[in-house]
């Protein structure tokens, strides 16, 4: 568990404060249609084109649960090592707002579909367990647009009724870095399961962040503030940092912290009070009489359990055991399902005589750099796993040097070309004929007699010069190992 060295503490004069964070993550269920209607859920559609009579709360319209969304929630629960509740209840959360057509949100209050669970975070100094309090299903609201007209507010109901999973953590997080790791882990698990695409830009994943502080070593929780609806990891970290310091300052000044809901202003990098506890809504939760309690059988849950894919923690363990990767390498490769898929495909295509280390280095090195540069996902990689495997094999069997491989890789980027062909067409095959290299070296020594003498007299630095010259003369193709061996012999 976490060591002292990485503890995130806020220091003031003689006092040290610990930050306690709990997250309510809203993850949009990956589904074709909404939680209680058949409307589409596609992102970016024209306003109000994905709205049914149910979503717009027309008189006499009734919700009907989307079984697929229920399955998605249960699968996510399984991925969070959580208890699946065979009976859950949909409640109405009542409040008035223009983008909430029913005047209530259908959510789960007392009896959520998923109970307690846990996720494991890989922190630089070891693993950390974070408790999950619950996961429940609920409807999203529509969107109010205030800036299109000076007088009027426009309402887009495309999101209205879209299924969300609210995943509530226990107050187990202690630093912005842990929050980052936690969100990434949740996203990773859900992407493995195909239950949420985790796309934060499109709002598929956002969180309410609960922050409190307490004197280091204290067992009691401080008064918490809830920062609403933060939609990027960076902003979450900034908001926590600001909010924790604000609370510590209040304590240091002898003031008390008000339990309240706050907003994070991303431009000013500060949190602002939105409403106090006294102004909190009375949501008048009660079971939705339009929906019967949701009951799922053991068979239903087991069927889903049996079809859960290998999840990141298991995959990591397998990568370490089977491929002899370091925990660090394995963590990087499993964190995203598409990266893991890519890596496994490379491994498969490399065949029998494979160099796992080399493959890992190429993926996390050259490939990641290119993807980063071009702002691409690995699923959009310009170089296919198959061709990368061929490239790694070409290095491994000595056909090309690592250096030439970089040139070949550059050429592969244009249209996913076969590296074998590039090597052949461009004549980049490594020069491994000792006689040819010997001839080449003889010529260089002959042309640089004075330097050869200086070297022999003890100026050993000049060895690099000869290697460079030999490489240059061969057009970079000469086997560097052979150059070394032959040069050493000749310069004795």
């Amino acid at each position: 568990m976490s060591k002292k060295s990485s503890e995130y503490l806020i220091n003031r004069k003689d006092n040290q404060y610990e930050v306690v964070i709990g997250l309510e993550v809203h993850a949009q269920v990956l589904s074709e249609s909404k939680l209680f209607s058949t409307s589409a859920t596609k992102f970016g559609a024209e306003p109000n084109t994905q709205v049914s009579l149910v979503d717009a709360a027309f008189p006499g319209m009734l919700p009907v649960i989307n079984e697929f969304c229920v399955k998605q929630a249960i699968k996510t629960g399984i991925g969070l090592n959580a208890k699946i509740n065979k009976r859950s209840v949909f409640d109405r959360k009542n409040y008035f707002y223009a983008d909430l057509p029913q005047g209530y949100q259908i959510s789960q209050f007392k009896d959520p579909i998923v109970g307690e669970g846990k996720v494991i975070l890989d922190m630089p100094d070891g693993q950390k367990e974070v408790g999950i309090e619950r996961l429940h299903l609920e409807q999203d609201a529509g969107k109010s647009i205030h800036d299109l007209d000076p007088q009027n507010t426009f309402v887009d109901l495309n999101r209205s009724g879209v299924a969300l999973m609210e995943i509530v953590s226990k107050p187990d997080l202690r630093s912005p870095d842990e929050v980052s790791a936690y969100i990434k882990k949740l996203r990773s698990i859900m992407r493995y399961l195909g239950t949420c695409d985790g796309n934060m830009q499109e709002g598929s994943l956002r969180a309410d962040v609960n922050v409190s502080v307490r004197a280091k070593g204290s067992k009691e929780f401080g008064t918490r503030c809830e920062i609403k609806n933060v939609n990027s990891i960076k902003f979450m970290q900034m908001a926590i940092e600001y909010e924790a310091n604000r609370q510590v300052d209040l304590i240091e000044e002898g003031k008390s912290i008000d339990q309240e809901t706050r907003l994070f202003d991303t431009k000013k990098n500060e949190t602002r009070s939105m409403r106090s506890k006294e102004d909190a809504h009375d949501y008048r939760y009660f079971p939705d009489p339009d929906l019967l309690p949701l009951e799922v059988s053991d068979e239903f849950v087991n069927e889903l359990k049996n079809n859960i894919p290998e999840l990141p923690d298991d995959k990591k363990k397998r990568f370490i055991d089977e491929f002899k990767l370091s925990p660090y390498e394995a963590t990087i490769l499993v964190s995203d399902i598409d990266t893991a898929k890519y890596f496994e495909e490379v491994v498969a295509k490399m065949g029998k005589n494979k160099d796992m280390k080399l493959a890992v280095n190429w993926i996390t090195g050259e490939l990641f750099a290119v993807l980063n540069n071009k702002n691409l996902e690995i699923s959009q990689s310009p170089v296919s796993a198959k061709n990368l495997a061929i490239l790694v094999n070409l290095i491994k069997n000595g056909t090309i040097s690592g250096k030439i491989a970089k040139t070949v890789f550059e050429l592969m980027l244009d249209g996913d070309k076969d590296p074998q062909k590039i090597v052949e067409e461009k004549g980049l095959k490594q020069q491994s004929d000792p006689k040819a290299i010997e001839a080449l070296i003889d010529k260089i020594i002959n042309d640089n007699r004075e330097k050869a003498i200086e070297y022999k007299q003890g100026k050993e630095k000049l060895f690099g010069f000869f290697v460079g010259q030999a490489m240059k003369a061969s057009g970079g193709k000469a086997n560097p190992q052979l150059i070394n061996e032959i040069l050493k012999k000749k310069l004795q």
Partner: protein
Amino acid sequence: MSDITKQSLTELVKNIKDKKLSSTEVTKAFIDRSEKSKKLNAYITEDFTSALNKAKKFDQKPNLDLKLPGIPMAVKDLFCTKDVKTTAGSKILNNFVPTYESTVTDNIWREGAILLGKLNCDEFAMGSSNETSFFGNVQNPIDKDLVPGGSSGGSASAVAGQLTPITIGTDTGGSIRQPASFTGTVGLKPTYGSCSRYGIVAFASSLDQAGPMAQNVKDCALLQEIISTYDPKDSTSIDFKRNQYNKELTNNIKGKKIGIPKEYRVDGMPKEIEDLWQKGIQYVKDCGAETIDISLPHTSYALPTYYIVAPAEASSNLARYDGVKYGFRAKGENLIDMYEKTRSEGFGAEVQRRIMIGTYVLSSGYYDAYYLKAQKVRKLIKNDFDEAYKKVDAILTPSTPSSAFKIGEKTNDPVSMYLNDIFTVPVNLAGLPGISIPAGHDTKGYPLGLQIIGKAFDEQNILNIAFAMEEKINFKNKITDWWIK
């Protein structure tokens, strides 16, 4: 035939099938009578031109295999009807025209019936006298200035006054059975989950149920056979084996055990109601059934329980009428102001009263004491019936504690108004079927009804008992057409 409107549904169907009457003749007859009956104020929206066109179209190519071939019918204005204004008796939906059809009305049109228009009702079905409607009082055809009951007052008035051969109402706490009782007609509230709620403007979702209102039990059975279908669009619809209620209707109830619950003998109940009940007991015995004294110990808690559960659900169900998307909107300075003005001006006093009661009982700090407790009592009331049904097949009670009262008589006394539903609400709370049949007259000559309560999904049994009793009672409704002369 000059007496078309006096015919029962069963007779009309037969005459059309035998080609003795055309749909156009029948439709025209009911339109003519409806036109002459404006004083009753039974309609909110008339759709006569369209009805006549549909009838003519039907006659051009009549499909006589249907169960309601070319039969005109007006329905309660709580059912959403495609392209025909649907108001729920409220100003807030005064301009609302649905683009969709309720499942129940859809079932009816599929069997060949033709919409005559939309019938008046209490606003959002909240009332027992049809006096809360934005569109004004409805007159009871029995006598001038007499309420027809509520909330399906327009429906009851239209059937009793022969403006429509049959109709459908909705019943949340007695809204079919009480007006049926007040107008000398038959009204069935089916088991909760029997008829789809899809497309019915919601009042209290866990209690609302659509049902037929008719001049006799057979007509009622025929309509129930049509409207009761399993509907996946309503999550509370139940997929049980439904009888062919009309086809299987029988007056043979020999050996049936009928429970007589002592708790329904309430304080201050008029003697004529008690006498009617005794007569009813004699009738079922004459039919060969056996009566057994039973106890439903939690009956006295039913009314207060109902007036917590129903307003709670209503307060949430009616939140959607906010002026944003459809319906009436008042101008406001900002969103909150618009909400407040829209809802203050758009909802009538009774609806506002119930929204406030409902909001209160769901509020934090009061939820446990009111809503949660009411749910527990509701369970006890249901258990009472479950216990009783171990011994009996059905239960016989009066439908209402009195006959119809005068317009305005109870408008300033909500509690006395609520007491009207004392015999009907337990049935809704337990989700059971109940039927009211006319069984006699009081000293003023106003009709009185008896209620038969059945086991869940046992509509056939109570229809059979009602059918057998109807024969013995031989009730004749005294309709003088006072509003036409």
